């Protein structure tokens, strides 16, 4: 099938985030909806779809994380040693 590509995002249950499910090619948005409904919803497996022209999507795949980013994350901290020391100082360490 020729025609522009539409990416399809589906929501499985209300309140859940939409996830990418696949794509359809279709002559226009109306056809895309009709066909995506069938492809991604005919078993009642979706409560909602988002149908987005592929050219409207701007992908970002390159990340310049050359240096340590751990200071922003939980796994960047190890408090074990200091916690032990603080407990000992306070006399609250489990004996």
């Amino acid at each position, binding site marked *: 099938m020729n025609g522009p590509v539409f990416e399809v995002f589906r929501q499985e249950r209300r309140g859940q985030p939409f996830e990418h499910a696949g794509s359809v090619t279709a002559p226009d948005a109306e056809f895309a909806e009709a066909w995506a409904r069938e492809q991604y919803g005919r078993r009642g497996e979706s409560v909602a779809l988002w149908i987005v022209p592929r050219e409207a999507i701007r992908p970002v795949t390159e990340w*310049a*994380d*050359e*240096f*340590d980013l751990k200071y922003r994350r939980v796994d960047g901290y190890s408090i074990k040693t200091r916690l032990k020391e603080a407990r000992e100082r306070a006399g609250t360490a489990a004996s």
Partner: protein
Amino acid sequence: MSERAPRLLELADDELVLGWHESEWTGIAPTLEEDVAFSSIAQNEIGHARAAYELAAADLGTDADALAFDRRPEEYRCAPLVELRLLDWAHAIARRWLYEEADAVRIAALKADTDPELAGLAAKIDREEAYHRMHAAMWHERLRHEPRFREAVEELWPYAVALLPQELRPELAARTGLALPSDTLLQGKERGEHTPQLAELWDEMTSVRRSAPAGARW
């Protein structure tokens, strides 16, 4: 002092002092989206400073924090461009753009250095700066017709030129399409001279660290 330490400190002090000033924009940029973007750039610059300090510290037998905090203001080797405290967006973003342009020229030269550690660090920094340059170019494109921004660029241009050694300046002029300023305009802006704002920043940035004696933990 090792042969490369002064060069590393120039780079590190520039990135530290610029990042330190720019971090002040966290939470007060023109839009919340830009808050997040600008703050990451400031953090990256400080990350670059830390990496360069670590390399220098290994040569000098000290550590990165000591180099960043425990020198006197007159011992810093940063250029006056980064020392200015610019709390209006026209100037802040004009400096951001000019700094990235000048830094691109400097980093390109460092990448070609015969010292593999120095060249390696420069290459690593360059990969992050590529994103900073994209950000700066985007703002430049958006604001270049705004009188406030143009005036700020004009005012800060001599500072940006003075950040680089003589031999790299023509390349910066070619990149930006701006004419090199006269020697008179460069007075007081050359590396080795310091603005009063550096001492003010130093006072504040070291205040907590200086507040407790040896044995203190941070």
